[in-house]
């Protein structure tokens, strides 16, 4: 679905590239998580995949980036955004600010695309129900808390039903229940065939929901694989990504000789339950 081959990018007037030699592949209908320390280039990569770089930001993009087999550089911005939706990091800047109700705000994109009215109203109601913000629909977008705004911002992109959705830290303002809700919505989208690329710090949730993980370090994709492969990798801490508490506990137990080096490092609750429960630990 999305394919980047040796992509490099330098912002206008920037002394150093923000991304270099980035190659990645995102299969259709999957959830791909991207992890990386602050400053590793996550927001830049999100904008490349969404077709905003270089069209909007300028600068120099090298290599090739394709979505659905079409070269992003050759797509107009309008075409690109019809294929890839981008949820930006700051939800307060996602909203248009030109509508007086949350309902109108969510419908804004559909209005731009000329969606018939009945379809538009149904679409707004549907995403609002999905994200449990129906009670906010008649409120002013300016009277929302950060968490509510984040859900409205996500709804405003979901409603456009783009085949690909790129989300830049979409749960940063949410409480645990809100965060779980967003991840469960991602599962729903995946079942509906949507391709999701999510940039996120919450490793445990990525482990539970993502099909694949990409590690962005030093401006390039340093590692790619299944969550289990990636999260157990020793190099993650050095890249500033850390590790799940399950993995950290198992490493410490290994160091203390409590579990053998042959036991694979757990990255999830269930794997950890196996390692520390009836598994190696239980044998002692």
């Amino acid at each position, binding site marked *: 679905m999305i394919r980047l081959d040796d992509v490099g990018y330098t912002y206008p007037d920037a002394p150093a590239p923000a991304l270099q030699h980035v190659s990645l592949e995102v299969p259709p209908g999957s959830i791909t998580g991207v992890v990386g320390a*602050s*400053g590793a280039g996550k927001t830049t990569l999100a904008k490349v995949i969404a077709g905003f770089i270089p069209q909007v930001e300028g600068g120099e993009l090298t290599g090739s980036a394709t979505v659905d087999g079409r070269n992003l550089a050759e797509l107009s911005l309008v075409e690109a955004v019809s294929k890839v939706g981008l949820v930006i990091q700051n939800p307060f800047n996602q909203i248009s600010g030109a509508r007086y109700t949350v309902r109108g705000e969510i419908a804004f994109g559909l209005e731009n695309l000329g969606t018939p009215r009945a379809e538009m109203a149904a679409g707004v109601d549907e995403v609002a129900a999905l994200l449990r913000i129906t009670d906010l629909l008649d409120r002013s977008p300016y009277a929302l808390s950060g*968490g509510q705004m984040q859900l409205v911002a996500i709804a405003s992109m979901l409603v456009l039903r783009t085949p690909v959705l790129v989300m830049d830290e979409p749960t940063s303002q949410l*409480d645990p229940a809100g965060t779980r809700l967003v991840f469960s919505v991602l599962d729903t989208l995946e079942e509906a065939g949507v391709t999701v690329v999510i940039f996120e710090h919450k490793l445990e949730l990525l482990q539970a929901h993502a099909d694949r993980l990409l590690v962005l370090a030093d401006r390039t994709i340093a590692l790619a694989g299944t969550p289990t492969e990636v999260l157990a990798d020793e190099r993650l801490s050095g890249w500033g990504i850390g590790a799940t508490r*399950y993995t950290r506990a198992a490493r*410490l137990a290994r160091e203390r000789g*409590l579990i053998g080096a042959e036991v694979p490092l757990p990255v999830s609750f269930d794997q950890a339950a196996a390692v520390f429960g009836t598994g190696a630990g239980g044998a002692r």
Partner: protein
Amino acid sequence: MSAVRFENVRFSYPSGVEALRGVSFEVPTGQRLAIVGQNGAGKTTLVRHLNGIFQPTSGSVYVADAATTGRAIAELAASVGYVFQNPDEQIFASTVIADVEFGPRNLGCSADEARSRAMASLATVGLAAEADTHPLHLSLSERKRVALAGVLAMQTPIVVLDEPTTGQDAGGVAMVAGVVEALASAGRTVIAITHDMDFAAEHFDRVVVMAKGEVLADGPPVVVFGDAEALARAAVEPPQLFRLAAHLGWPDRPLTVEGFVDAFERR
């Protein structure tokens, strides 16, 4: 001596919404207190009473054993440093250093003293190299660290952190944790609002669970995170390793990675 005391605090917004419905608890000096609960539970409203942004509709709030009633925000600022959740609501100056110096200058520090405190705080949050940068050229997570430095430089006896770890990577979370530990070991009181239960379990002495303007549970993390009913009502889950130990039927309820491995060794 108590750093902070809430006595049956009720608060209603002008719109009539009752955000706090009788909150009472006391925070001894030097304690690290985490307040958890869903968005809209009243956590931010509660802590904003500490520096006089809000005055209780009824009940009383005491800071260092003196009621906040009638005291100006600027006056309470000498006792309570408050780091806003959204750094863009706090940072205003055109360089990072000027913004961080602002608080100490208001508290009467000399220019030199303010500068050295600001540089030390920036070093603490890992942004010493960005002192002369315009805050708008930093990322959101960096701006959050600037906001933290701005309050640390005030060296107040009480520090309130509103969701300090959101948007931070592993290094950022570790940095905030280090700040909490350093403040506590210097005898200062830390009150943090957080959605990260693991962070609360690992770095705080006490956890208060709030929902709908009330306190549902209050105590040491190991007790509070064992109160399944209160946690369910507040829609939060216990920390991951705590939950795992319970799932495995261990007698211990570890709060940290080390504690978990110790418990594993003991069984």
